[in-house]
């Protein structure tokens, strides 16, 4: 039972232990950096400076915030269900931490390259929906409950297009192992064959992360923080930690699966530092896009959000799987997939435009109001 880690022979368990610790520490630092960057970037979008006072360029702001949060009183509302309330945050951030086991930072730089890595990642990350439901339910607060219910409905709805689009990519690569999927794209990244898949993945990822324009659960202007509302101090900082760590994971996975990760271009030839750089650039681009979206897009309403998942994303995702299947089974040229993907993007755009141009008033609600008025 020995394995090699950084050139040293050591037991597998010890090796895993060290790797896990490195990742957890790195994650904390990265989350702090992400929070700082998000504040700076959104500040620039809004013609503000963002944090400037703490340390040079406000670099220590996240650390100061973390210290402040740790020092704050850990409040629990009187009416809250103590067990569910206190456990809920673990259900939110533990799944995210656990997901890091399979995240490929570079070729060979993961804690474990599981054969079913993709499935494992999706399975663990969907547990956090339960955490939101628990937090919302146990807080004894109506906003929190509304937010929690929204989070669950949204999580369930967007889980499916997310899984199905990733499944379509796994069909192309013939593996669920993230390392293999990445290596498979050494020459051409998957986004070329699956442009629609990438867009749908990105949309579903934003929804899965509860980020704008799908942040209805947190919905600052409606539910005033949603499930977070009654959490303070260190518990609240756990929410932040989980949110940004999740963003980081999903952007790395997204770039590993669609953008060629650290394998494309020339990743295998130029060594690990170059691979880390590649991954850093690609995942940063995805993270920046998420921040950009947050600074500029309004929030969807819950029925629009659900309708978009079930009526638009889901059929398109299943069609993608079907077409991939045909292409693979009958050995057709992969270029067909690109064409299909571009057509799919047009359809997606058409569906969005159609939803916007729909005549004013929603018959369902109007009819309901009329029946209420008469009864």
């Amino acid at each position, binding site marked *: 039972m020995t394995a090699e880690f950084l050139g040293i022979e050591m037991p597998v368990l010890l090796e895993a232990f060290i790797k896990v610790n490195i990742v957890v520490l790195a994650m904390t630092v990265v989350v702090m950096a992400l929070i700082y960057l998000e504040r700076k970037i959104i500040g620039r979008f809004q013609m503000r400076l963002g944090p400037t006072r703490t340390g040079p360029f406000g670099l220590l702001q996240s650390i100061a915030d973390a210290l402040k949060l740790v020092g704050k009183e850990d409040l629990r509302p009187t009416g809250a269900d103590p067990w569910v309330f206190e456990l809920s945050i673990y259900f939110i951030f533990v799944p995210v931490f656990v997901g890091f086991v399979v995240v490929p930072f570079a070729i060979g730089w993961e804690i474990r390259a599981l054969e079913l890595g993709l499935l494992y990642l999706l399975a663990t990350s969907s547990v956090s929906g339960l955490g939101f439901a628990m937090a919302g339910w146990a807080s004894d607060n109506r906003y929190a409950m509304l937010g929690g219910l929204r989070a669950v409905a949204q999580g369930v709805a967007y889980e499916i297009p997310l899984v199905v689009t990733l499944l379509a990519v796994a069909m192309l690569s013939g593996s669920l192992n993230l390392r293999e999927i990445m290596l498979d794209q050494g020459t051409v990244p998957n986004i070329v064959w699956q442009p629609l898949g990438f867009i749908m993945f990105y949309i579903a990822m934003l929804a899965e992360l509860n980020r704008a324009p799908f942040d209805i659960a947190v919905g600052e202007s409606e539910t005033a923080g949603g499930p977070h509302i009654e959490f303070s101090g260190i518990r609240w900082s756990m929410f932040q930690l989980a949110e940004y760590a999740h963003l980081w994971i999903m952007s790395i996975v997204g770039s590993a699966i669609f953008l060629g990760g650290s394998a494309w271009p020339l990743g295998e030839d130029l060594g690990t530092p170059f691979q880390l750089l590649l991954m850093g650039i690609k995942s940063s681009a995805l993270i920046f896009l998420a921040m950009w979206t947050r600074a500029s897009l309004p929030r969807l309403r819950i*029925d629009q959000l659900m309708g978009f998942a079930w009526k638009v994303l889901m059929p398109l995702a299943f069609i993608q799987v079907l077409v991939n299947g045909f292409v693979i089974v009958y050995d057709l040229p992969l270029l067909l997939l690109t064409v299909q993907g571009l057509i799919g993007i047009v359809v997606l755009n058409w569906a969005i435009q159609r939803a916007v141009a729909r005549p004013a008033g929603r018959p369902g609600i109007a009819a309901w109001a009329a029946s209420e008025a008469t009864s």
Partner: protein
Amino acid sequence: MTSVLLQPEHEFETQDIFVNMGPQHPSTHGVFRMVLAVDGEVVRDVLPYIGYLHRGAEKLCETMDYRQGIGFMDRTEYLAAFNAELSYVMAVEKLAGIEVPERAQWIRMILCELNRLSSHFMFLGAFGVDVGVLGTSFTYAFREREVIFDLFEEICGDRMMYSYFRVGGLAWEVTDNFVARVHQVLASARQGIEDLDGLLTANEIFQARTKGIGHISAADAIDWGMSGPSLRATGVSLDIRRDEPYLFYPEVKFDVITGTNGDVYDRYICRLQEMYQSIRIIEQCLQRLQPGPIVPERMSRLLRTPPGEVYLRTEAPRGEYGVYMVSNGGNRPWRCKVRSACLSNLQALRDMTVGHYVSDAVLVLGSIDIVLSEVDR
């Protein structure tokens, strides 16, 4: 005996929950409180509570000299204080029969329209936040609002509570570079409107969120006594500036913007388009501005009015801002009553909200564009 399960109405027993929004909630725009009866996500009933900001401004006016009341009017409508002052001083002038010099009237018009711009910028910014833009619309709008406020500060030394209009004219002459400064402000405001237009109006999510929400028919709007952009969005072309002219509004060209559907989107578009009209009005005013006196030649040191009553209304950014004043003679009003546009507009809240989602309740409230200090006074 039939099973209970076979009867659909007994399948589930559901209960509405009450969600309390405000007085401390990010989207109630001040200290407004509404209790929503919610069935899942759908609003079934709305119970508004007002009065958290009641300071008795009207009653206070009755204990003071006419000139001292101007400051209280600022505080009833702090986002468009010039417009509030205007109604008040014009009511007193009408009561006392004072003629206002031409220059003072043009300057009043310019300042009121600038204030309409700043108030509508505030609306655009806050409405963007209600729809869910993280705060970008807010900072965009505040950038332009700051420019306008800087101008106000140069003129009257205050950014929000001006007390600059006086019975009979203005407190003092505007700065020498006034015309050039207003042109600067207009250029930046025009840019700001275009920026906000680009950020919000063209956005698919914004359109999907606002179209068809919070609909109210023209007849209902009139019944509730709505006015201003909220009324015009329903298609009723009523603008006091045109229909019951005051100052020099008949001498400038502007369009009265009306909507068609009376939904949230139309109310938003009406305000946005109105801002271009305000710029148009100000540009014409600047051309007509001539040197001259800003107060009447002869004003008595103690302002006394003959007995009588007066109701004077002007078109404030949020609608009809009217001042009803009764005088028994003497130097203070016997009764002063402010007809608030926000209060009347707010009454339609329930009609507009019921049947929509909780998220839309926030939008509907935002689209009425209330100022709580004007509702409560």
